[in-house]
């Protein structure tokens, strides 16, 4: 049981190792890959490896369907929660504007707000975001226009978050 719990609790380290490995494989092969897509791939591979490990360490020894269902549900929820947290942390390191501002100022030294805008312009920010969404297949480009692409998981997330914000009484 302790090994089963340790395996789940340490799963973000496994995902980190897998992602670092995959990034280097993609870089060595010269394949262009969106960092978030590689992180998602690491998350899925980690889930498969973790499922195998928890089966070997604990779940394989269970007999009754109720016990199996509870153990798999528990493992899926813990892995899902920690895996999502890891993914989010990585995403912050990749897309946070606050960190980008700090990084630019750290590299450039004291800078006026106008010069800071030049280092990371609003146009560049929007271009970065549109390129990411196109690469993830969340939107498509029709001539000069950008269009939401049918079923978009991120759009669904945006709607869910704005609904939840309303439930909390927050104004967006």
């Amino acid at each position, binding site marked *: 049981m302790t090994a089963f719990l340790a395996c789940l609790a340490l799963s973000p380290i496994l995902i980190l190792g897998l992602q670092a490995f995959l990034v280097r494989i993609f870089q060595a092969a010269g394949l262009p890959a969106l960092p978030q897509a590689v992180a998602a791939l690491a998350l899925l591979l980690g889930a498969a490896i973790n499922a195998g490990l928890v089966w070997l360490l604990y779940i394989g020894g269970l007999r009754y369907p109720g016990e199996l269902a509870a153990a798999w549900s*528990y493992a899926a929820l813990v892995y899902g929660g920690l895996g999502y947290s890891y993914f989010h942390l990585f995403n912050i390191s990749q897309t946070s504007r606050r960190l980008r501002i700090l*990084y630019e100022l750290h590299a450039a030294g004291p800078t006026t707000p106008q010069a800071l805008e030049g280092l990371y312009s609003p146009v560049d920010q929007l271009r*970065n975001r549109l390129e990411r969404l196109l690469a993830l297949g969340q939107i498509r480009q029709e001539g000069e226009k950008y269009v939401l692409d049918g079923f978009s998981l991120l759009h669904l997330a945006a709607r869910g978050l704005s609904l939840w914000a309303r439930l909390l009484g927050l104004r967006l």
Partner: protein
Amino acid sequence: MNRRVGPARLKQALLDGLALFLVSLASHVLLWRLAPRWRRIPLLLACFLLPPFLAFFCGGGPSAEAWLLHLALSFSYIQTYPAIQALSPTLRLLLILRDCEKTGLSFDEILARLNPRTLDADRVEDLLKAGFLLQAPCGELSVAPRAAWLLSPFLLLRRVLGFTGGPEG
């Protein structure tokens, strides 16, 4: 909360962990609706970290398994909260595109609606308020020493992962 061995203990931990998370979430929703002035990150952390301690002091502390489940779910919610509080530009962009689903929008039209310039000004303001940025009387911005503590772990993570440079933003 029971502390039984083996599969029964795990079943109980599943229920306890979910119950703890739901109680925490409910207290967060109630507090946010009833006391808007208290909508602060430390209080959000308290909403999710206090219930297990309260249960412990009431004589029915959750097991380690229940704690792990509660923490895994709580971390994922706490990480999502900033995106709930101030919808990220990417998610806002998707909602703008949904409003013009049939015709779509050009780059300039999106730029005009999203207005990232004001969003950035908000971020600089946030960083100044939090003490991560310093502003000289002449208006120049510089990074405060404490910002290194914030920036370093993320730069280390990026190095471990094989990325060069800073965040794309």
